[in-house]
């Protein structure tokens, strides 16, 4: 346990070997992770708790931390050595509860160039518990910490009032900490510039535009130089041979290979298990998953995101949120599931409802975006801009409407801004691997399953029946061919496959724009649906779903009229 952004997850990862996402902003961990470690001859369970400043919780993430406290035998209290004054408050609160504590004095490496000198032995004596300096990111001091966990003690500490506790903290800090000359680092000046209106605004534009270009550059490079050559030169002949072996048609042929187009395999349109079923996830979506999460990981670890939150605060207030909601929103550009989870860093139920609804309607996930870039981009970039522009407008307008209609008020921004750090390559790559692996094991089975299901349903003409039934809405209102309803229905499973289904329909550019926007806005994929249900409760989830359907139809209809 410890304050937010002190390195609890990094330490947890070191102790247990369990990989967890580590970033440089408060509120990375909104749930808890469990692992185990060897402690002498025994195996001990280790729990990574979300950060909290005090034992009087102010957000759901802090409440979780508070509840976890009762289940532990020993608390490893992670303390930020560069900010003893604030961190020891929680330490004293823990000691007052009579829980055995061992203190990890983390971020110890930063104390040197900040000119902070802490007498660790004296601190240990004053607190009455073991105090071990650690650097979780590099692993320094971890061994000593493990040796000292069995020595955790709960010295008798009287319960204090708030004022008394702060006074006690002040007394301890005065005795153990000496602050000498500090060397200003060049990025400290940068740190202040990024929260000033003018310089900060320019920096935000540069950072966001640069990130977008970098994501596109890496994504397109992977597609053009790695995956497309692989599929076209190596895989395509294999599938063609197989197609010949299977007689070039029939039920099983259509499931496995799909429809040949002009006697050739078309990886986008064939829609068989071994053609589109592999090409869509690996050659269209995966490259963008990798590039997006690489860039996001770097952004997370520099510590820039909380500064972006400060800059965006005024705008976000118009949407009934505060600036920190920009973090779940950015995560949503990767996948809506962790994004909805991370709304736990917001304080009120109202904010969480607004943020989760906006994310699931107007923030397309990386898989869907990759397909939009691939399919709509082929028609011209102005159409991609239309899709993004529309979704952005929907985000703003819907946010303003929700702000006026959802009852209650949203609290103001109050966040700690971490120092800038150079992203440690180890955590960046580890996060990238975890998130990419997550995509591979969770998405690919569903994608393959969806392709099989689609083909079977097609074969038996089920979709035709549905298409005729829904034709008035799909054709009349959205101006799409009636078969497009298949894509909208499949969107519930996977948005990327769904958009892929629009490819063989020979849509005009305008129709593709309508299709992409409606797909992005309408029902979330099943994984997001489940997480919305769990996080918002059934009533609010139904509300969010209702808003989604209505908004998707209205916006789709308007786009159809314009285009």
């Amino acid at each position: 346990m410890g304050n937010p952004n002190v390195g609890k997850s990094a330490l947890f990862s070191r102790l247990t070997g369990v990989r967890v996402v580590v970033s440089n902003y408060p509120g990375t961990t909104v749930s808890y992770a469990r692992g185990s470690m060897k402690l002498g001859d025994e195996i001990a369970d280790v729990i990574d708790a979300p950060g909290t400043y005090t034992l009087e919780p102010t957000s759901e993430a802090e409440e979780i931390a508070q509840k976890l406290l009762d289940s532990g035998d020993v608390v490893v209290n992670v303390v930020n050595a560069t900010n003893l004054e604030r961190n020891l408050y929680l330490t004293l609160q823990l000691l007052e509860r009579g829980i055995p504590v061992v203190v990890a004095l983390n971020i110890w490496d930063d104390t040197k160039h900040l000119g902070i000198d802490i007498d660790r032995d004296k601190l240990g004596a004053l607190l009455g518990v073991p105090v071990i300096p650690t650097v979780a990111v590099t692993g320094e001091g971890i061994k000593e910490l493990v040796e000292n966990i069995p020595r955790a003690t709960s010295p008798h500490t009287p319960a204090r009032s708030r004022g008394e506790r702060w006074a006690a903290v002040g007394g301890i800090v005065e005795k153990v900490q000496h602050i000498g000359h500090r060397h200003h680092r060049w990025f400290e000046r940068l740190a202040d510039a990024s929260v000033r209106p003018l310089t900060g605004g320019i920096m935000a534009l540069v950072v966001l535009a640069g990130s977008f270009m970098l994501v596109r550059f890496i994504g397109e490079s992977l597609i053009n130089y790695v995956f497309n050559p692989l599929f076209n030169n190596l895989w395509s002949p294999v599938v063609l041979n197989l197609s010949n072996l299977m007689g070039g048609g029939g039920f099983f042929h259509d499931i496995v290979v799909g429809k040949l187009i002009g006697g050739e395999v078309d990886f986008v349109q064939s829609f068989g298990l071994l053609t589109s079923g592999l090409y869509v996830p690996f050659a269209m979506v995966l490259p963008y998953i990798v590039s997006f999460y690489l860039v996001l990981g770097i952004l997370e670890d520099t510590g820039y995101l909380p500064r972006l939150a400060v800059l965006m605060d005024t705008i976000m207030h118009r949407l009934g949120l505060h600036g920190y909601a920009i973090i779940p929103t950015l995560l949503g550009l990767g996948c809506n599931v962790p994004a909805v989870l991370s709304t736990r860093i917001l304080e009120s139920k109202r904010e969480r409802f607004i943020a989760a609804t906006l994310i699931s309607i107007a923030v397309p996930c990386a898989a869907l975006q990759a397909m939009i870039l691939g399919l709509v981009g082929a028609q011209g970039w102005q159409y991609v801009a239309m899709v993004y522009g529309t979704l952005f407008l929907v985000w703003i307008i819907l946010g303003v409407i929700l702000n006026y209609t959802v009852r209650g008020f949203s609290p103001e921004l109050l966040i700690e801004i971490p120092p800038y750090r150079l992203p440690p390559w180890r955590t960046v790559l580890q996060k990238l691997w975890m998130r990419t692996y997550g995509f591979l094991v969770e998405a690919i089975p569903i994608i393959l399953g969806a392709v099989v299901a689609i083909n079977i349903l097609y074969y038996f003409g089920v979709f035709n029946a549905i298409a005729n039934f829904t034709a008035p809405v799909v054709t009349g209102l959205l101006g799409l061919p009636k078969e497009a309803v298949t894509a909208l229905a499949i969107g519930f499973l996977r948005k990327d496959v769904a958009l892929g289904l629009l490819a063989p329909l020979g849509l005009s550019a305008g129709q593709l724009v309508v299709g992409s926007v409606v797909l992005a806005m309408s029902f979330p994929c099943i994984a997001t649906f489940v997480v919305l249900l769990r996080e918002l409760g059934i009533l609010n989830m139904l509300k969010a779903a209702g808003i989604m359907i209505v908004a998707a139809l209205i916006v789709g209809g308007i786009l159809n009229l314009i285009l």
Partner: protein
Amino acid sequence: MSDIRQTTLARMREGQSGTVVQIQGGRGLVNRLNGLGIVPGKRITKISSMVMRGPVTIEVDRAKVAIGFGMASRVIVKTD
């Protein structure tokens, strides 16, 4: 007796330092600020503020904290 050096966090100038005197707010506000070490008697320095009543950034105990404008208006500070 009113002290002319008393102002709010929101109205302080950039770069100005002072000591927190009082937090004029309910328990919720006092509670949240307490966690971040913003309590009466604490020394703070204002770093910047955003336009249009945006958040105010301050330094407290070597940590930087961003506070919404409304909250910042309720933190009374005695400037140096």
